[in-house]
């Protein structure tokens, strides 16, 4: 179910109405679970079965760990989640490379099932639950809670519909303490409204309009376009992917608050980053902190010398790339970022120019340019096509450039994202009146200038 659809609006309104009825205060969690299951099963009900298996297994494993602090059970839990992810996401690629399976084989049928939506997110949350319980960071001593209650809470933690399909990836120790009765008069309306309006604006007005133009980043369309138009398209896609994903995250945060839950911030103005390390502290924060907490630090982090640190950085980014999908293009995207982080660390020094405005601006532009070019590997599933695009980007300068509707629209629809970053960069504080007026304009544009409804880019992961 898409956030920007009528069925979703109906589901949220109905759930909201029932949820805050005083008579249902004690069963609020069950109401949200029911709504989440309807949300998840709306297009493919059979996928709910897999989600429930994952939840039950992680509930039982984490429960067992809280009773008997056993490393073996932790390993079992982590392996189960990784196998689930591997089987549904990577087995098709794996078997196509290493094995030949007959088409009448059950395994062939299973590995060719469509990717269960949100699996990359809920398996990571499963791992977080298991590891947090073992570390003791999630308070699951269960002294006064039954296994049944633990299963209910875990189901709520994993399936809570605002974040179920595309994050933010929740950590058990952040979410569980929030599971308690919620009251209508405690709703933080300002933040609900603000997050929803900005989120829907970014998705429906910016991303959905830009996608009509960035669709030209497809073979063979780009081969006949001038270099400058290709640069416009790539820039537009960079803005689109931010607007699409940050928009989704803000809607998720707004919806979370509507039901009394604080979901973590997922984007913090990433395109003003002056380094790649900073970029990853600002982009998809819930994934990067997850990778840091559950992969980079367990691998040794920066505790075993320079070489090991570089290797760990590169490996984490490579795996982070593959997390997005079973394709070499994602691996290359991860390696580009991993390589950039390693090079940046190699040349890190405290020179005097670091406070210079021009130097900072140049660094910001370099980071933005590399990040933007790397998005090409996201956009084009075929690695060869990505390289071909880069070739044409630099060699099509002989084709005359005409400033047309496409280039003008790419610029116009990018302005809100650029302004959004610049306002933050220059610490421009809006008065509450001006803030309200801007939100009104954004809401007005949602009504009168939304693009054609499109899936959220991160739904495919």
């Amino acid at each position: 179910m898409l956030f920007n659809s009528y069925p979703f609006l109906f589901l949220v309104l109905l759930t909201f109405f029932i949820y805050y009825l005083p008579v249902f205060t004690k069963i609020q969690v069950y109401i949200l679970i029911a709504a989440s299951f309807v949300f998840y099963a709306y297009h493919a009900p059979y996928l709910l079965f897999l989600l429930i298996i994952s939840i039950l297994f992680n509930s039982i494993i984490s429960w067992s760990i809280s009773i008997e602090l056993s490393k073996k059970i932790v390993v079992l839990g982590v392996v189960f989640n990784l196998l689930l992810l591997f089987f549904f996401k990577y087995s098709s690629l794996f078997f196509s490379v290493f094995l030949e399976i007959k088409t009448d084989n059950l395994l062939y049928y299973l590995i060719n099932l469509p990717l269960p939506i949100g699996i990359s997110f809920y398996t990571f949350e499963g791992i977080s639950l298991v590891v947090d319980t073992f570390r003791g960071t999630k308070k699951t001593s269960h002294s006064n809670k039954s296994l049944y209650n633990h299963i209910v809470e875990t189901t709520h933690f994993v399936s809570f519909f605002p974040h179920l399909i595309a994050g933010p990836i929740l950590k058990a120790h952040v979410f569980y303490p929030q599971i308690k009765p919620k009251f209508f008069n405690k709703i933080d309306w300002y933040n609900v409204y603000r997050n929803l309006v900005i989120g829907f604006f970014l998705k429906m007005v910016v991303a959905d309009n830009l996608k009509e133009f960035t669709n030209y980043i497809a073979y063979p369309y780009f081969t006949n376009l001038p270099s400058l138009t290709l640069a416009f398209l790539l820039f537009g896609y960079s803005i689109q992917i931010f607007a699409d994903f940050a928009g989704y995250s803000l809607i998720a945060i707004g919806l979370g608050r509507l039901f009394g839950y604080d979901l973590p911030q997922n984007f913090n103005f990433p395109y003003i980053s002056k380094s790649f390390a900073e970029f990853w502290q600002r982009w998809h924060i819930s994934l990067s902190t997850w990778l840091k907490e559950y992969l980079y630090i367990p691998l040794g982090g920066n505790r075993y010398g320079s070489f090991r640190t570089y290797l760990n950085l590169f490996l984490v980014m490579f795996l982070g790339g593959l997390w997005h999908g079973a394709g070499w293009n994602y691996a290359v995207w991860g390696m580009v970022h991993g390589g950039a982080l390693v090079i940046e660390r190699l040349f890190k020094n405290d020179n005097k120019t670091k406070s210079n405005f021009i130097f900072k601006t140049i660094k910001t532009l370099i980071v933005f340019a590399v990040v933007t070019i790397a998005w090409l590997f996201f956009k084009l599933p075929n690695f060869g096509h990505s390289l071909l695009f880069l070739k044409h980007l630099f060699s099509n300068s002989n084709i005359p450039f005409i400033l047309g509707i496409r280039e003008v629209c790419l610029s116009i629809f990018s302005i809100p994202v650029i302004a959004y970053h610049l306002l933050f960069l220059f610490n421009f504080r809006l008065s509450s009146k001006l803030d309200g007026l801007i939100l009104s304009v954004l809401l007005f544009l949602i009504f009168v200038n939304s693009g054609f409804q499109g899936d959220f880019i991160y739904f495919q992961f």
Partner: protein
Amino acid sequence: MIKNSILYTLCFLLAYSLFLRFTHFDRVVALNVQQSKYITVENFLYHSNPKSISSIIIGSSMSEKLNPKFLPNSVYNLSISGAMASTGIKIIELSGHKPKKIYVELNVFTRQEDSILLNSLNSPLIRKQKEFIPFLQERNQFFVTLLNALTASFSINKNRPPVSSQVLLNTQSDYLKKQNDSSNFELINQNIALLSAALKNYSKQNVQILLFRMPVEKSTLEILNNSTRLKFERSLIKKTFSNLPNISFVPEDNGFNYQTTDGIHLTNESAKHFADYLLKY
């Protein structure tokens, strides 16, 4: 703050609705292909007068070049960029119009049906809300209105020049690849069958159906004539539509040197010439 913000939004919407009520553009320029498709369909559904329309042209972006200013008021061009004739016939069915004559372009059969467009038209909720709330229609999108106001003010010349030889070679090279793609044959079969079923239905109701092909650049035509796809398509069309009551073919006009902007789509001058030729039938 929230109340004020919502109130301002309502005021903006009201002001914009009033602006739309008293503003009219002769021709609306879309920002992208998808939007152009919806504008064509919505104009036909919400802004056309069925009583004054006796003939409708359906087809793809190729016949979309037959600009309304080249056609009499009784002829409506419902050709949709990015779509094909079978989409057009479904929209006529949905609208309930029953013209005397339907001109059907036969150049494009290798597209998937636009299910999103057709589903949105089939949804009573979406159709009604767009009918009664004009600012929800694609042609009334804020930036479309802004762009059209600007182009009207500066009277920008939108007449594109004939294609250059380099662009023509590139287009034709892409075209060649597509023409010989045998995976398209099943789709062609399916689309012709769908179109045939709908057209037979109209022909039974005494609607005259005229099948035509849009002309293209001569060098492109040579490529097309040698393609296995076109040979297959032509023989299937002949087999499907020959000897049916009220359905006839418009002969191809080979006596004029048609010029295009990209090897496929006619320039304004050529489009006007072909419109005159077509309407003789």
